[in-house]
């Protein structure tokens, strides 16, 4: 198996896009090729690093702000379907006062 096929398999396996047969194909390569193992571990580390990055949360009140704006948008519309449509009233938008990241798990 050439290098480019090996690399392609590594990405596919780590992306969860490889077939079972491709997974076995890669296992066989990793079992016999130290350089491929090193390459795979480095790539796996990159995936882990990206996965571990904290994910931000939207500011409080974003949905309420959107729905308020959508209500205005719809009421301005001249089209009958939209003119007849009004969104439920929500509390006014409250801007975020702190970091978009919160110290709670990503669920």
């Amino acid at each position, binding site marked *: 198996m050439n290098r480019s096929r090996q690399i392609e398999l590594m990405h596919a396996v780590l992306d969860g*896009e490889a077939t079972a047969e491709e997974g076995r194909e890669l296992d066989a390569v990793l079992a016999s090729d130290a350089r491929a193992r090193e390459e795979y571990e480095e790539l796996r580390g990159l995936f882990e*690093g990206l996965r571990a990055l904290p994910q931000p949360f939207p500011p409080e009140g*974003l949905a309420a702000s959107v*729905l308020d704006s959508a209500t205005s948008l719809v009421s301005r519309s001249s089209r009958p*379907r939209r003119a007849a449509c009004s*969104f439920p009233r929500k509390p006014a938008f409250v801007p975020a006062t702190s970091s978009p990241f919160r110290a709670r798990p990503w669920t």
Partner: protein
Amino acid sequence: MDNDVDQALVARYRAGDKDAFAELVIRYQRPIYNAAFWILHSADDARDVAQDVFLRVAEHFDEFDGQHRFFSWIYRIAVNEALNLLRRNGHEEWLDDEIDLPGADTANPEVLAGEAERSRHIRRALMCLSRNDRTVLVLRHFSECSYQEIADILEIDEKTVKSRLFEARHRLRDALKDFRPT
């Protein structure tokens, strides 16, 4: 995202149930904000983009083709809005280290410091990439889209998605080497 749930909400909204739109907003606010944040690396810009995305969805709902996935449609709008804002702002690269990260789930200060440093390196390296590289990585690693979903969102074929991901990761690894402590 479960396409059946999306389809049911879309059908309800089209049938005149206004609450269905609110449910779509609540359902998608976090993933859309999140994708915009990582493309733009700005909390304020991500909030603006997320708001604009939902307003565009409301305004152009009639144009949504129910044969396609709502997920792909709204993400496509989000990616385009975020990239347009980047172009307007003239920001190709961001090195904003001012945004706080949440603490890791450990009481060990050395582990915390190590993780924060590693996270900072990855974020800085990400922001050094081109917007196209960053976008494909964001969709795969943060939005957890499949190759096919990324292809639908970016309107490219799956083979191109694979190749873009491969090249973006290669450049990310190179950029990380630049930030590695000596």
